[in-house]
Each structure stands twice: as structure tokens, then as C-alpha cells.
């Protein structure tokens, strides 16, 4: 419950304050969002599995976002930013799909 409220509060903050993203950070925003979604779905899945752990969740969120952004940054410097972004999205996408499938099985038993 607190989690949902916190998420809603975050969205509200983002909409109210209308922050402008520095131009240098803009390329990393989409990949950071995918990484954050992966952490959130992982957390929900863990909660439903009964193994949720705050420390694990926070660390996975922070490291996911930072590592994803770093990989894209590195790729940009090497000239393979697009391909590395695709790689990150594939890996995180597979995880999101798997976790959402597990959540679905938990919720609907199907």
C-alpha cells in the first residue's frame, strides 16, 4: 500500500515540478526507465513470492539504472550506443516479461 502511494507520489512530483532534463542526460532517460521498471517488477514478483527484501530492492534499482546508463554511455563513446542500448533493452525486457509472467501466475493462477 505504502509502495503504491510512494509510486503515485513520485509521478505527481514529476508532473508538478516539470523538471527539465539536461541535454546530456536525455539519451539515458529511456534506458533508465526500462531499468527502473525491471527493478519494480522484480520487487513485485519477490513480494508475491514472499521473499521481498528492501535492501535487495533498493540496490537492484540503483545499480540497474546506473549500469544501464553506463553501458549506453560507454556504447556512445565507442560508437555502438544503439546496439548496446538494444542489448540492454533485450536483457531487461526478458526479465520484465519473465517476472510479469510470474506475477500473472500468482494473481490469476494461470
Amino acid at each position, binding site marked *: 500500500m*505504502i509502495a503504491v502511494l510512494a509510486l503515485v507520489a513520485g509521478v505527481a512530483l*514529476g508532473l508538478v515540478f*516539470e523538471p527539465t532534463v539536461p541535454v546530456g542526460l536525455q539519451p539515458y*532517460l529511456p534506458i533508465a*526507465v526500462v531499468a527502473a521498471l525491471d527493478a519494480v517488477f522484480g520487487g513485485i514478483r519477490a513480494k508475491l513470492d514472499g521473499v521481498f527484501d528492501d535492501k535487495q530492492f533498493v540496490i537492484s*534499482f*540503483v545499480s540497474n539504472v546506473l549500469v544501464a546508463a553506463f553501458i549506453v554511455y560507454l556504447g556512445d563513446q565507442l560508437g555502438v550506443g544503439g546496439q548496446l542500448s538494444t542489448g540492454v533493452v533485450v536483457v531487461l525486457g526478458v526479465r520484465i516479461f519473465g517476472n510479469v509472467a*510470474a506475477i500473472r501466475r500468482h494473481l490469476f493462477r494461470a
Partner: protein
Amino acid sequence: MTNPRPTDPQPTDPRRIDPRWTGPDFLLQLFHDPLDPGYADAARRKAERRASSAPPPAAWRRHGTLALRVVTLIATGFLLAVAYRQAVAAEPDRTQAQAGLVDEVRSAQTRTDDLQRQADALRDQVNRLQEAALGGQTQELRQIRELAAATGLAKVTGDGIVVTLTDAPAQIDPKTGKPADEGERVIDRDLQSIVNALWSAGAEAIALDGQRLTATSTIRAAGDAILVDFRPVTSPYEVAAIGPDDLARRFGASSAAADMRGLSGQYGIGFAVRNQADLTLPASATDVPLQYARPVGAGTPSPSTTTTPR
């Protein structure tokens, strides 16, 4: 999904033995068990602590981790909202640039039309003043009018024909249903040959898309655009010509018309000729006085030109 639900690691699971184990194949493991192994490790540590009846974690610790979780989720929501706003804001940037260019073109066109109207009004004024200066409908005035009409510097009316050319429609890709590539286009040379054929068929005045052709008119291509006296014309191209009653027949017998019929059959370019009574062709917008050629026997060119040189 048919894979078994990943549950707590089995006693034989290598992760039980070595927590750094990542499996023989990272991707296989990813597909098999997408949940971060850290959660299982944490759960196992908790269970071990409970089993060994160690004291539960201090209250500040529990509250601290809860606060961290809340902060993380707020950050996630913030990130989502910011990314959404960013994506929404990026779209208008692109369309705005295009809309700005379109506006610029429109205003330039409006300005050109205004100037054209102004030029027409001034020309009327010049005609009236000429009439007044020459003292009514005299022989000289009639001669000036005839010459102006013949050279394309005056509006003329009469019966004639209209030749219409249109670009071929875009090819539709049968698989995707989308336009595969642009259809064949009318090019400047098509228009040139048609205009030449009309002149040779006896046309006395020709206008292309409402632009009167004079002795110095040009029809040329600039990239994909066709320019008539530096003004762009677009499909459908209408070539209106005033000439003898059998202009359509004589034009139809020309080789240019035969070529266009061939292009029409082969590439789908639209080509139509129709008779039209009471055509009115405007005066040319570019009545620049001659700069290099001098009329023979008249000394210097007449200073009473109707426009200023460009």
C-alpha cells in the same frame, strides 16, 4: 509459459553451495528464472537468522529500509513522469520546426500574391495614363496594345485549348499496401516540348499554370520542382493556349503530343487536351525591359517601361 515456476532453490542447486554462481549460461538462466537471485539469498539469510534464533533487527534498521524503499519508489515514479513528459515534449519540437517552415512558405506566397495584385493595379494605371497621354483611342495606342498582347505583357482573352498533365499516381506496394515509391513525374522537358508544339501549332498566347509565357520565359527544373520564370508550378500542370479553331487537332498531330500519349500509356502520366472557349490569360509577371537588345532604328530603348529593372 510452460516452464516450472521457479521456487526456492533446491538443496542441490549450485547456488546453495556458491552464492556467486551464475549458471553455465547466463542467458539460459535469465530465461529460466528472471528474478534476481539476490532475493532468494536475502530470504535464505532471514530464514537462517530466524532458525538460529538471533535477535530481530533493530527498529531503526527496519524503519530505515522501509524509508529507502519508499524513496526508491518515489524516484521510480518521478523517473516515469519525467520520461513521459520528455517523450511528449520531444514530439512537438519536430512538428513545430516543420510547421514554422510551412508558415514561412505560406507568408512568402501571400506576399508574392499581394505584390502581383499591386503590379496588376499599377499596370492598369499605366494603361490609363498611356491612353490619356496619347489622347484617347488612337492608332498608336491600338498598336501598343497589340504589341503588349503579342509579347505577353497584357492580359488577353479568346478561344483555345487546355492541355493538362499530371504526375503518375504513386505505386502501391501489393504486400504492405503503402506507397512503394513515387510515381513517374512530369519533367520540365515534357512541358517545354508541349509549349513548343503549341507555338508551332499556331498558338498566340500560352500560360502555364496561370503564368503567361513571353519571348524570354524559361521552363526549367530545380531539383524536383519545375520553375516557370523562377516561380514553381506543380501537378496538375495546365497549359492554356489561345489559337486557331483547329489548334487541338494540330497540336494532337504533333510529335510532342504523340510522345506524351506514349508516356501516358507506359508510365501512367495523365495527359488530356480539351477545347475551352473564352480563355483569359493573364499578363506575364516578369515584364523586365530588354537590357541588351536594342530596337533597330529607334535609337535608345523607350524610357517609358512599365517596371523597374531587377
